[in-house]
């Protein structure tokens, strides 16, 4: 009732302005009310730790003399530390190989599943997605078993052909061993995102292209892929962020491949070792922060190079 009379009140200029002003203040308040709880969590568990990590990384703890402010010494140390550099080089190399592999596989699968509509195709879609539901740790444990010489099937399978099984846990092949685990784990997830994007494309576009004489291959490369480019960029960015932070899989396989994976295998493992095994939180924070910087630069560079193609943000 009250709202009705308010609405019907004669509209004189100043009164409207007054009401608008009130509405505006109300809108500010309501907006912050909805965003506020997340904002508190965001400040407490993202901004504060980041600021704190930056602060910690500027100090050094010595056995004699206690903790002292050293400005960027930890970063100078990190960028001349062979452990950090080799780890960083490994994750960059690993990203350059694993991300294109996963995305190409996911894209091919999504395109196949978008055009094949049998019951078996639907079943395959679920089965290929299944590894995403598996914790990365468990995935690494499972593959660790399959690789192991003791109870893995590789020895048997290669034995059938009279060949020696490759040891994916040796330092020569660990790169490929990890590559396989990561591809197995994530390709299905990326496939589902791309598949969902393909399903959102208006099918009349394909009809029109077919009328113009386009083949299946042309429809895929000229229509489907360009239309899902934003989804592709999105998953590329996420896989880049994830791969540069590589931790779970090598950490788990470390137990089985002690000789091939050291405690400084990736920057994140090195930071973990520094902070939690050696209680060197200052240097650990500096490595984390340097890794964060590396991620930021890589993502930014990637978005910069793809900006012409439409950005996802």
């Amino acid at each position, binding site marked *: 009732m009250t*709202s009705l009379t308010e609405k019907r009140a004669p509209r004189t200029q100043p009164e409207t302005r007054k009401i608008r002003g009130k509405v505006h203040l109300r*809108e500010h*308040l309501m907006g912050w009310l909805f965003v506020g709880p997340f904002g508190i969590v965001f400040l407490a568990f993202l901004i504060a730790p980041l600021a704190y990590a930056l602060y910690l990384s500027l100090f050094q703890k010595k056995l004699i003399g206690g903790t002292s402010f050293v400005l960027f010494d930890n970063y100078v140390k990190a960028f001349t530390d062979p452990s950090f550099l080799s780890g960083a080089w490994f994750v960059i190399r690993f990203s350059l190989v694993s991300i294109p592999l996963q995305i190409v596989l996911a894209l091919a699968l999504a395109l196949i599943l978008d055009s094949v509509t049998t019951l078996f*195709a639907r079943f395959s879609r679920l089965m*290929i997605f299944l590894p995403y539901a598996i914790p990365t740790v468990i*995935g690494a444990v499972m593959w660790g078993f399959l690789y192991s010489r003791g*109870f893995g099937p590789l020895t048997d399978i290669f034995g059938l052909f009279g060949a020696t099984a490759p040891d994916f846990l040796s330092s020569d092949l660990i790169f490929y061993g990890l590559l396989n685990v990561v591809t197995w784990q994530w390709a299905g997830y990326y496939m*589902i995102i791309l598949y969902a994007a393909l399903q959102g494309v208006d099918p009349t576009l394909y009809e029109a292209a077919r009328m113009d004489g386009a083949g299946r291959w042309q429809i895929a490369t000229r229509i489907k892929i360009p239309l899902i480019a934003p989804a592709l960029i999105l998953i590329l960015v996420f896989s880049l962020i994830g791969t540069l932070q590589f931790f779970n899989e090598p950490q788990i396989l470390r137990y089985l491949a002690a000789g091939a994976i050291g405690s400084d295998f990736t920057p994140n493992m090195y930071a973990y070792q520094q902070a939690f095994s050696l209680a060197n939180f200052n240097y650990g924070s500096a490595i984390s922060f340097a890794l964060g910087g590396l991620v*930021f630069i890589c993502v930014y560079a990637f978005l910069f190079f793809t900006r012409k193609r439409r950005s996802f943000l």
Partner: protein
Amino acid sequence: MIDHTSVRAGARRPQRYLPLQILLGFLVIYFLVPFWWVIVNSSKDAPGLFGGGNTLWFTDQIDYLGNLRQLFTYDGGIYLRWILNSTLYAIAGGVGATVLAVMAGYGFAKYRFAARRFSFAVVLGALMVPATALVIPTFIMFSRLGLTNTVWAVILPSLLNPFGVYLMHVYARDAVPDELLDAARVDGAGEIRTFIQIALPLMRPAVVTVLLLSAVASWNNYFLPLAMLSDNRLFPVTVGLGLWQGIASANNAGTTSLWSLIILGSLVSVIPLIIAFFSLQRHWRGGLSVGGLR
């Protein structure tokens, strides 16, 4: 006209392409091999596991029940505790993160408040912050507050899900018409009531997606609990199995029975997630397309 109907009929008939299906078949085998290995080998006892028989097929002795009993009674039933811990972390972290993300996404999409654009840009920037880079400083902050080695150390940081906010923002912007909200307001519904009764049902696919993604992220989390917890009775199942694997690898000969526990433990720990994903399939698929498309 005739051409048009024939095209339609063609679209409705299942599209087969046999070569592609055969290719799919091979890929499905690849994706299922680890599951198959785990299913087969969790039926074996230690001699069967190390006896040198076929590793991809069952032995004569299929003893799931005996192995399950061993798994759930080993070390005073610690495995069940890990599963329950994981469940607690996944539900508390997942529901909490979803509630916060849904509210924030809706707020960003539907209210023009001060500093809105700036705050949203900051949230998007946060998508690029490596989550694990936050673990070390969060650990030190929590240890100052005496929160490490408690369940809060795992649950509280899991509440942060900037990607969920982004997804909800996009979805709320497109799926909830402003006119509908205005109509509800004119009818005298308060802002909170409008949100709960009008907007929330419209956002359901995205809500389920965010809930599932955050619950899975909490269930799968390894780095955070590994750093935060030292009492193994608080471990989630990921850290617990990692611990067992470390022990089993360290003294390979002495603890052969632990290997069969790890194998069965991995199998049991993935069942809840597989059930959740399959039963909620209809809901999350609609939500996933949102993040990629816009």
